[in-house]
C-alpha cells in the first residue's frame, strides 16, 4: 500500500544505486573507447568518462523522472565532478610533497647547512634556511605586530576624522601591494645607502606585507568587543588606556593572535622579496643584521633553479617544501586552536 501512494505522489524515482551504476558504466565505456581509439592520455579517458556520465545521467533521468529531476541530477553530478577534478591537483600537491619530501628529511638534513655541497650533489641540509626564515619572519613580526595592533586600536578606539580615514584608505591600498614591489622598494633603499644584502632587509619587506593584514584582522576583532564592557570599565573610573589594555585587548586577544599568526604564516612563504634582498647563503649565518642569509622559500627556489635537473637537488627542494608547509600548517592549526579556545565569550 505504502509503495503505491508514495510513488503516485513523488513520481518515478531512479533507484539509489543508479548514479554509481551509471558512473561505473561510463568509466568502463571510456576505458573501452580509449583503448579502441588508442588514446594514451589518461586525462582524455577521464574526460570521456565524465562526459559519458553526464549524458547518461541526463538521458536516463529524463526518461524516468522527468526533465526537472534530470537537470537536478546533472547539477549534482557536475558539482561532484568539479569537486573531484579540483581535488586531484590539490591532493597531488600534498601527496607529492610528502612522499618526495620525506626521502631526505631527517635529523641530519634539519641540523646541517648546505656548506660546501654543490647544488647538484646529494647531501647537505636546510638548517641555515630554517634559521634565516625564523629570524627574518620573527623580526618582521616584531615590527609589524605592534605597529599593526596599535594602529588598529587607534582606528577602533580613538580614530575619528581625517587621519583615521586616511589610515584606513592607505591600509586598504597596502593590502594590494604585490610582494615583489615591496621587495623592490626596500632594495632600492638599500642601493641608495650602498648596503650589502642582509637578512633584516628581507624582514623589512615582509613587515610591509604583514602590517596591513594585521591591522585589518585586529580591527575586526576589536570591533567585536561589546561596548558594554568598555562602558562598564570607564564608568568605574578606569582610565581609557587601562580599559583598552585590561578589558578590550584581553577580550579580543584570541582573535588578534589568530590574525597575527595567519599573517606570519602568509609571509613565511614569501619568496619574491626575499630573493631580491637577502642574497641567499649556503652557510649558516645567525646574524640577521649582517651578511647574506638564506630562507626556506628562497632555498626551495634555488634548489630548483640551480639543480640542472639533478634528482638530489629536487629531493632537497621537496623536503624543504615539506618543512615549510609543516611550519605554516602548524601556525595555522595553533592559530585556529587559539581562536576557538579564546573566542570572545559574548556570543552563543
Amino acid at each position, binding site marked *: 500500500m505504502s509503495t503505491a501512494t508514495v510513488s503516485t505522489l513523488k513520481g518515478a524515482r531512479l533507484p539509489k544505486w543508479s548514479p554509481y551504476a551509471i558512473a561505473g558504466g561510463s568509466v568502463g565505456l571510456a576505458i573501452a573507447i580509449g583503448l579502441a581509439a588508442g588514446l594514451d592520455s589518461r586525462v582524455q579517458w577521464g574526460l570521456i568518462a565524465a562526459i559519458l556520465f553526464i549524458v547518461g545521467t541526463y538521458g536516463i533521468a529524463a526518461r524516468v523522472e522527468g526533465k526537472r529531476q534530470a537537470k537536478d541530477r546533472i547539477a549534482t553530478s557536475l558539482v561532484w565532478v568539479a569537486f573531484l577534478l*579540483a581535488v586531484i591537483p590539490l591532493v*597531488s600537491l600534498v601527496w607529492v610533497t610528502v612522499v618526495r619530501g620525506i626521502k631526505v628529511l631527517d635529523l641530519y638534513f634539519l641540523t646541517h647547512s648546505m656548506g660546501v655541497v654543490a647544488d647538484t650533489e646529494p647531501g647537505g641540509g636546510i638548517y641555515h634556511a630554517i634559521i634565516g626564515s625564523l629570524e627574518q619572519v620573527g623580526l618582521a613580526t616584531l615590527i609589524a605586530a605592534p605597529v599593526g595592533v596599535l594602529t588598529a586600536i587607534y582606528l577602533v578606539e580613538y580614530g575619528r576624522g581625517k587621519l583615521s580615514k586616511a589610515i584606513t584608505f592607505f591600509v586598504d591600498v597596502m593590502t594590494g601591494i604585490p610582494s615583489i614591489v615591496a621587495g*623592490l*622598494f626596500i*632594495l632600492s633603499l638599500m642601493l641608495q645607502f650602498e648596503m650589502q644584502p642582509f637578512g633584516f632587509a628581507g624582514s623589512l619587506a615582509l613587515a610591509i606585507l604583514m602590517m596591513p593584514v594585521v591591522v585589518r584582522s585586529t580591527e575586526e576583532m576589536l570591533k567585536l568587543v561589546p*561596548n558594554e564592557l568598555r562602558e562598564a570599565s570607564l564608568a568605574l573610573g578606569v582610565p*581609557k588606556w587601562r580599559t583598552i589594555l585590561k578589558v578590550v585587548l584581553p577580550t579580543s586577544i584570541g582573535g588578534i593572535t589568530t590574525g597575527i599568526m595567519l599573517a606570519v604564516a602568509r609571509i613565511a612563504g614569501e619568496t*619574491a622579496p626575499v630573493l631580491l634582498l637577502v642574497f641567499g647563503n649556503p652557510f649558516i649565518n645567525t646574524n640577521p643584521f649582517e651578511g647574506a642569509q638564506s630562507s626556506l622559500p628562497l632555498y626551495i627556489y634555488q634548489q630548483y633553479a640551480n639543480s640542472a635537473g639533478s634528482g638530489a637537488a629536487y629531493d632537497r627542494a621537496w623536503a624543504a*617544501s615539506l618543512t615549510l608547509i609543516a611550519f*605554516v600548517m602548524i601556525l595555522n592549526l595553533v592559530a585556529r586552536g587559539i581562536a576557538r579556545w579564546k573566542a570572545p565569550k559574548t556570543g552563543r
Partner: protein
Amino acid sequence: MDTTQITDTPPPAAQPTATEQKRAARGATRPGDRIFLGLSRGSGIFLLVIMAAIAVFLTYRASLAISKDHGNFLTTFEWNTGLQEPVFGIAVLAFGTIVSSIVAMAIAVPVAVAIALFLTHYAPRKLSGPIAYVIDLLAAVPSIVYGLWGALILVPHMNGLFGWLDDYLGWTGIFSWQGGAPRSMLTVGILLAIMILPIITNVSREVFRQTPRMNEEAALALGATRWEVIRMAVIPFGRSGVISASMLGLGRALGETMAVATVLSPTFDIQASLLDPGGGTFAQNIASKFGEATEFGRDALIASGLVLFVITLLVNGAARAIIARRAEYSGANA
C-alpha cells in the same frame, strides 16, 4: 554564526568613545592616556608614512625611467634597458598578466563555486567539515611550493591535454600547439587557478552558508528540486559575495611571482596561442630581470611594478565596493 553581534556592536561603539575622546582631548587626562594615544596614533602615522614613501618613491623612480624610454612605454614589444637608447614597454607583460589571470579565473571561479555548493549543499555533513578545513589550510600553502609542483609535476602532465586541445580546438588559433614544452600561458593559468581555488572556495562557502534558511525551505516547500533551490535562493543571495571572492583571487593571481617564474618559458613577445610557450607577466619579469638590471633597468622594472600595483589596486577596490554594497542591502548579514 554570530553575525548578528558583529553588526550590532560597532555603531553604538561610536558615540560613547567619541565623547570620551573629546573629554580626553580637552586635556586634564592622565599621562598614561596621553602616552597610549600617542603610541597608537604614532603607529598609524608611521604606517601612513611608509605607504606614502613607497608611493612617492615608486612614482619618482618610475618617472625617471619612463622619461628616458625611447620606445612607447605602453605599446613597445621589447625590454632592452641596457642599451644606450633604452627601449622598453609593458605591452607584452600586460597581455601576459591579463591573459593568465583570465584563464585562471575562467577555470577557478566555476570550480570554486561548485566546490562551495558541494560543501554546503551536497556533501554529507561528516565529510564537508574536514574537507572545508583542509581547503582552508591549502590556501596557506606557499606559492613557491605550488611553483615547484607546477614545474616538476604539472608541466610534464600537460602534454596529453595540450595534444588533445590542439587536435580538436587547434583550428581556433587560441589552442593551436606547435609541440613546444608545455610551459605556456595556459599552464600558468591552470596553476594560478589551482592556487586561488582554495581562497575563492572558502569565501564562497561562507557566503552560501549564510543563505537565509527560510528562503531555502520556502523553495523546497514549493516542490523545488535541490538544483532549483540553489539557482533561485542560494546563488542570487551569494552572487556579490562570490564576485568579491573572485576579485580577491584575481588580486592574488595578478601579483603571483614565483609560481609563474618557475613554470613559464619567458620570451618577450605576444603569442596568439595559449599553448605555445612564451610571454611574460609583470611580477615574473621583475623577478627574473632585476638581478642583471642596471640602476636604470631597475627603475624601468619599478615602472612596470607600479603598473601592476595600480591594476591590483583597481581590482581590490572593485572587490571592496562590491562587499560594501552587499553589506548595505542584505540586512541580516555581514
